[in-house]
């Protein structure tokens, strides 16, 4: 009767445990023991939890997906991820529900006589390859183009780059990260000569002040915002929201400062003026580590086709810079920025106080800006002048929108001018790429071709005769879709769309290729803090769905480039990543090996001697610093960062008598970009079923518009009818309206303007002039 004795003993042990728990509970009400919590988990929770990064947004939270009988059934935050420590947002928790959508693209569809015919995937890929080959033969290499995404995985971006630049030999490759991160990239390159933030999320744990520049983090980077709120409550850290609209972030912050659109340029200069004229400059830091430059001004806005611009930087002295700042006294700036002199001085005093640690955060407000590169430069100026950079709790931090805008678009380089390492205009960089790709180096063209907006203009003009889009929905996300949609519908261009769900972009496709979703494939993403994360395939995709990387490889093989893509179907993700790592070898950008990425929730590059580098350019943390000083901005040849003289210039289009309102567009927490995924998640759709236009109550009153009433937003380019939202989620200033852009049934991008930053070529979705009519 041995078993009964052990049973009895275990019973007694349980009794002992239970009595101890009761005793503990009387002393500490609310105490939780792991055993007690587990007992509440339903019996059917016998799940296999698989690790990966979240599919939505650039924060890069670690998720665990519960899989049962080959189906994904639950999601929880990964407690071992230092990014989110077990917490997610509502999109993250429900992300897996979209793959069960009934209108999932499960098979290839080929347009024949105006209707789509279900086609075996191999036949569809044959058609794509032959069409591409034919087009190149008839019209040259530069008549075909590929448009990918900041949501493509690292291997997907890498094979796209190798295919277009290495195999075919055209620079007609760009991605939707041009619409969200290009200004951040140009800002980093012009100031530091090296892309991506120097700090990391651990800055949140030691900063005294968080200053957010035109950034509604409570909705767009909610998990990071939670970490900030936690510091606000526990340590009394302060959040200051500097924005054009009152949002959830504004109301949760300690202070909300509103400014007139576009005047952030002037306010940033006014802060520098205060820093310089109050003696708050960290002189030793600036002398050791900074140069002063100015560039060209009055650059225009890129509104005309084939617009070209090249900046001409020239060195200036500190005295010249100081003289330039005379135009930006708080008193002068206050007049047109509508920010009070007191508030400007308040912001400057925070940055200027050497005893306060400050992190600046920004995302689309500063990047989607016709002077986005300048704006990025200006915030770096503030941090460089005060020497508050690259230290725990001190630094500028450019947040990313998409889960792999950093990992894929920026690091792999799926832009027209980029290579996995360096740029196409640099011969050394081309030689390096050619060597690793095993192609003749002459094949990689030295001149960049089309950036995103210009690429779709070229489609409209008929210059591009074949375009393949992957993991993106340009006909909802491009500005001024009123031009680009009819452009893509033209017979002159053959359109291939790879996607998971039907979208307005796939509606104009000649061939639709069915892609697998996130957890149905293996892959790697890179988040805002330079963290590379790997995941293994968790569930099978339905029907003939195929990984995007593999579809690119299959087409390349069919076009005769098989020898350049010798990867196996089962293991191509790992093979590609190992090949790609060769590009970044060295202390400045070494990527963590796969075994490391598989064993933990990601690693931050430069990954040197088994360690992530959390603060770059700071000799105490970054082994790549080798100038013997405390800081080394090694991206620039002389090791010095640049403080740029960048003036205020007006927006491309400002409100006038005919079109009296600013139109600002953006997102809501429930929906991800164009909504093709999140609108298919019932929880999220029920919470925000359609788009709306936010008006200030005063404006609504003046025009007699009630909440929920339909209004027409009209610009010089197009119009859009939406229900009004008065004093609900957000509150634009008087004379401004705000519209979330996720809704393909209410296309606000028909109304927006395709003006862009001449340096970064990133469009400005935040500023154009509209009028409001009761519909």
């Amino acid at each position, binding site marked *: 009767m041995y078993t009964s004795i052990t049973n*009895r*003993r275990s019973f*007694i*042990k349980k*009794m*002992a*445990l239970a*009595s*101890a*728990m009761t*005793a*503990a509970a009387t*002393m*500490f009400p*609310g*105490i*939780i*023991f*792991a*055993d007690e*919590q587990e007992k509440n988990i339903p019996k059917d929770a016998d799940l296999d939890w698989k690790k990966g990064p979240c599919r939505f947004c650039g924060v890069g939270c670690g998720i665990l997906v519960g899989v049962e009988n080959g189906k994904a059934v639950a999601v929880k935050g990964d407690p071992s991820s230092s990014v989110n420590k077990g917490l997610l947002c509502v999109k993250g928790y429900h992300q897996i529900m979209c793959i069960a959508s009934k209108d999932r693209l499960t098979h290839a569809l080929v347009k024949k006589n105006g209707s789509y015919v279900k086609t075996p995937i191999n036949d569809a890929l044959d058609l794509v390859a032959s069409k591409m080959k034919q087009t190149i033969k008839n019209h040259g290499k530069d008549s075909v183009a590929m448009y990918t995404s900041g949501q493509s995985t690292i291997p997907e971006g890498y094979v796209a780059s190798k295919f277009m630049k290495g195999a075919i030999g055209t620079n007609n490759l760009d991605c939707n990260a041009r619409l969200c991160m290009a200004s951040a990239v140009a800002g980093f390159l012009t100031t530091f000569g090296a892309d991506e933030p120097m700090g990391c999320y651990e800055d949140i744990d030691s900063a005294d002040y968080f200053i957010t520049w035109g950034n509604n983090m409570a909705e767009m980077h909610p998990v990071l915002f939670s970490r900030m709120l936690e510091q606000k409550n526990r340590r009394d850290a302060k959040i200051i929201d500097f924005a054009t609209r009152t949002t959830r972030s504004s109301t949760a912050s300690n202070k909300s400062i509103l400014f007139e659109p576009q005047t952030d340029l002037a306010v940033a200069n006014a802060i520098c003026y205060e820093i310089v004229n109050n003696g708050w400059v960290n002189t030793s830091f600036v002398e050791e580590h900074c140069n002063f430059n100015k560039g060209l001004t009055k650059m225009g806005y890129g509104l005309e086709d084939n617009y070209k611009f090249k900046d001409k930087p020239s060195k200036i002295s500190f005295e010249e810079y100081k003289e330039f700042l005379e135009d930006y006294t708080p008193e002068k700036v206050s007049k047109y920025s509508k920010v009070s002199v007191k508030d400007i001085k308040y912001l400057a005093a925070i940055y200027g106080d050497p005893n306060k640690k400050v992190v600046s955060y920004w995302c689309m407000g500063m990047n989607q800006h016709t002077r986005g590169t300048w704006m990025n430069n200006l915030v770096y100026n503030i941090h460089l002048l005060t020497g508050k950079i690259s230290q725990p709790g001190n630094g500028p931090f450019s947040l990313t929108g998409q889960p792999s805008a950093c990992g894929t678009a920026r690091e792999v380089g799926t832009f027209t001018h980029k290579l996995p390492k360096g740029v196409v205009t640099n011969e050394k960089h081309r030689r390096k790429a050619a060597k690793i790709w095993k192609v003749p180096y002459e094949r990689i063209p030295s001149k960049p071709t089309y950036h995103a907006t210009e690429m779709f203009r070229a489609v409209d003009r008929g210059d591009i005769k074949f375009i393949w889009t992957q993991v993106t929905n340009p006909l909802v996300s491009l500005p001024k879709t009123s031009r680009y949609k009819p452009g893509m519908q033209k017979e002159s261009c053959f359109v291939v769309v790879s996607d998971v769900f039907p979208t307005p972009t796939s509606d104009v496709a000649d061939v639709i290729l069915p892609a697998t979703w996130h957890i149905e494939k293996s892959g790697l993403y890179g988040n805002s803090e330079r963290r590379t994360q790997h995941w293994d395939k968790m569930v099978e995709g339905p029907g003939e769905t195929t990984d995007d990387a593999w579809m690119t490889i299959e087409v390349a093989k069919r076009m005769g480039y098989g020898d350049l893509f010798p990867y196996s179907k089962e293991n191509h993700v790992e093979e590609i990543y190992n090949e790609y790592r060769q590009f970044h070898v060295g202390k400045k950008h070494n990527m963590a090996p796969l075994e490391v990425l598989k064993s933990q929730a990601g690693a931050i590059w430069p990954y040197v001697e088994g360690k992530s580098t959390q603060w770059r350019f700071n000799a105490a943390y970054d082994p790549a610093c080798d100038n013997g000083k405390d800081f080394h901005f090694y991206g620039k040849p002389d090791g010095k960062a640049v403080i740029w003289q960048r003036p205020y210039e007006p927006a491309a289009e400002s409100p006038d008598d005919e079109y009296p309102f600013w139109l600002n567009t953006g997102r809501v927490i429930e929906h991800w970009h164009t909504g093709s995924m999140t609108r298919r998640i019932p929880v999220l759709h029920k919470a925000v079923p359609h788009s709306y236009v936010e008006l200030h109550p005063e404006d609504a009153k003046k025009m007699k518009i009630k909440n929920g009433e339909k209004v027409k937003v009209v610009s010089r380019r197009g119009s859009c009818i939406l229900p009004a939202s008065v004093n609900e989620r957000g509150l634009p200033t008087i004379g401004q309206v705000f519209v979330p852009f996720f809704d393909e049934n209410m296309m606000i991008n028909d109304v927006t303007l395709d003006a862009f930053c001449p340096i970064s070529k990133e469009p400005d979705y935040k500023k154009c002039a509209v009028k409001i009519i009761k519909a």
Partner: protein
Amino acid sequence: MPVKSYLAYPLKGAKKALHDAIAKIDYCEVVAAENKDLLIVITDTKTQLEDENTKQQIETISNLKLLTLVSGFNTPKN
């Protein structure tokens, strides 16, 4: 064959260290509270002597602030 349960209070910030130290001792099982600085220790020993030794062993751990007995059971040998 005594089975006893204790509440163990760690010194400030030493919950994890105490947990690991107790877990190493024979005949001991530890359950840590998730949100408070408190551990439950259950000892399951064969003889009275072993039981006393175990208790002494726990009490010598430097990170322990206080150990209180909650309940004790004894089962006959057969």
